[in-house]
């Protein structure tokens, strides 16, 4: 009955009725800097302030990536050669897409341990259909339908029976690794020796084909222009409606960063990586595939009701339920999308290997994918993360594997180094977050 002891509040503690300096500062730090800053200088200052207070965003992983790249370049001058960088893109692609698959469920605070074998089983379906002379797109659609449906079944079991996703997908992991052997066996002559070859030029070209250099430039320029236009239109609409919008200079800066990244990627892709006699140039198709998926999924998570509800459930499932969100349906759809994206991964993997075999390491692949998402900044506890995290984290995992291979180190060293980087990434994340809560 007596008035309760006031508990310490989050972030800042104030004693008077007016918002104090520290409270105001907390608000400044929590809001996106582009909505407060009036100029580039102010933007940079606010941004640095946020980084210092623990809201570092993608900075640690980008800095980490640069450091790792520099180390490898010092050890081997081949590392930053165009040929190796294109290799890196093709090697990292399936880790990145599998990481994106995991982001859907990680945001809910769940996990899908089966995704690596979902990918492999999906690839078997696609390659079997291709071998049976079905058109490539029928094979791809069948693969995505099957893997998406499998994901939905997992989601259904997890939500309806209220079982932990860890256990359900662990069972899926075991079951699908068995199913993989069964499926390859069942294909008979097609899968002789436990290997199904990929005999389709279009699907093979995802990883081994490339746009011609001119097309690479055109695609890059179109993408940058479209991205720039969308950013400008969005800011203009905010300004017209009387809302705070980032200054034009900052929007221009963002577009410049996108453009520079695009130019670098195309320059790397267009450099001759063959020999003087037999030139190989152009951006691998898989880069466009990965970028396309990244854009679609980023829009899905950031600009649709479905995406908003995923974050809401990951943040506070009870609040989402009380707000009228059908949390079970959103969860099932997220698992279905995770499965379907694993299916895409399976096709990319098969395209990279030129075949799919019973020896696919679906367990290690899925753990690498989860590591990629977490290194990129996605939380294992739900509510925090982006599709971009899987790209950045997947690049880190890919760079380590590629660089150590280049140095002639075997799988043992690769795995142990990846482990160290994962622990380092999670430590950095946890330390900065501790800094945030105590500042």
């Amino acid at each position, binding site marked *: 009955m007596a008035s309760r002891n006031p508990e310490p509040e*989050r972030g800042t503690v104030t004693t008077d009725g007016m*918002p104090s300096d520290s409270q105001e500062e907390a608000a400044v730090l929590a*809001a996106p800097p582009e909505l407060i800053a009036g100029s580039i200088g102010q933007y940079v200052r606010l941004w640095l302030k946020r980084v210092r207070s623990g809201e570092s965003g993608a900075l640690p992983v980008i800095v980490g990536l640069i450091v790792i790249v520099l180390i490898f370049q010092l050890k081997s001058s081949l590392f930053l050669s165009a040929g190796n960088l294109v290799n890196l893109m093709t090697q990292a692609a399936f880790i990145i897409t599998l990481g994106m698959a995991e982001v859907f469920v990680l945001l809910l605070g769940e996990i899908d341990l089966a995704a690596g074998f979902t990918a492999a089983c999906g690839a078997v379906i696609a390659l079997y259909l291709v071998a049976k002379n079905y058109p490539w797109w029928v094979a791809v659609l069948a693969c995505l339908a099957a893997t998406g449906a499998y994901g939905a079944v997992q989601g259904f079991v997890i939500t309806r029976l209220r079982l932990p996703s860890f256990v359900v997908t662990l069972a899926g992991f075991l079951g699908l690794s068995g199913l993989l052997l069964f499926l390859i066996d069942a294909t008979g002559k097609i899968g002789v020796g436990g290997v199904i070859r990929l005999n389709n030029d279009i699907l093979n070209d995802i990883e081994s084909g490339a746009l011609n250099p001119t097309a690479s430039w055109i695609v890059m320029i179109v993408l940058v222009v479209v991205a720039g236009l969308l950013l400008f239109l969005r800011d203009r609409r*905010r300004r017209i*409606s009387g809302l705070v919008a980032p200054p034009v200079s900052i929007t221009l800066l963002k577009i410049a960063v996108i453009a520079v990244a695009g130019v670098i990627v195309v320059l790397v892709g267009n450099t001759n990586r063959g020999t003087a006699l037999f030139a190989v140039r152009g951006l691998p198709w898989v880069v466009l595939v990965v970028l396309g998926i990244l854009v679609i999924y980023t829009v899905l998570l950031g600009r649709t009701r479905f995406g*908003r509800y995923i974050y809401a459930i990951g943040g*506070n499932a009870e*609040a989402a339920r*009380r707000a009228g969100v059908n949390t079970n349906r959103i969860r099932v759809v997220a698992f279905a999308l995770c499965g379907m994206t694993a299916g895409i991964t399976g096709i990319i993997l098969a395209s990279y290997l030129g075949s799919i075999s019973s020896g696919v390491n679906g367990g290690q692949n899925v753990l690498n994918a989860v590591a990629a998402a977490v290194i990129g900044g996605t939380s294992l506890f739900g509510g925090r993360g982006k599709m971009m995290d899987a790209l950045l984290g997947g690049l880190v995992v890919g760079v380590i594997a590629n660089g150590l291979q280049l140095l002639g180190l075997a799988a043992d060293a690769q795995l142990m180094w990846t482990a160290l980087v994962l622990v380092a990434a999670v430590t950095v994340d946890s330390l900065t977050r501790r800094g945030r809560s105590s500042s």
Partner: protein
Amino acid sequence: MDGSLLSLHDIGKNFGPVQALSGVNLDIPAGQVTALVGDNGAGKSTLIKTISGIWEPSEGQLIWQGKRVHFRSPRDATDAGIATVYQDLALCDNLDIVENMLLGHEVRRHLLLDEVSMEQTAKQTLSDLRVTTVRNIRQPVGSLSGGQRQAVAVAKAVMLDARLVIMDEPTAALGVSQTALVLDLIGRLAKRGIGVLVVSHNLTDVFQVADRLAVLYLGRLVSAGPAADYDTASAVDLMTTGATQRNRGADRAARTPDSGPEG
């Protein structure tokens, strides 16, 4: 009964052999703050859960704006205009203020979320309620103070055209300035013609903001009336024993007439 927003008629609720509520009759008027007080286990939570559709009453009737209603889910109650604000259950820390306020009622434009119009709506509601301590409505709710979180949750209810706002222990775990902010907001809700039902342990806060008082004791409503008819001592008597020996009229005379906010 005249013009009551919500009337409870002989509401009873039992869980098997346990009678949590029995024979509760209560009128909750619009434009006033009704405080529901009682000791632990008196049935306060059960009563608000019955009103907000989480549990259906075992007996009795709910009359909402003159019509008998059955709420089978919290959604039914929300749709009818009864919003319940729970301190910790209402908001997603990882979403910003606009996202939280519009959660479940997003505005779309060409299939994508219309952030501009949602931000305008949220901004308008907050300024109508004069919630001015929030600096930037694009900051995550996790970075807000307890009082600000409460304000966002209330603003969300108001934005959804709630006619009755139920608040469960709105000032528990809040500091002095934050409590003042929330009590101020409660008073402003009532001025807008919204009915407010506040469940609280804190009698200081209750007397500061309530127009009417309802006391539960062991699942029964033992007393209800204008807050001016009670003082802390008589309210404590009623909450702990179900009755008071004190002379209400004397109490009323003893109180300064302007001690409670009268809307």
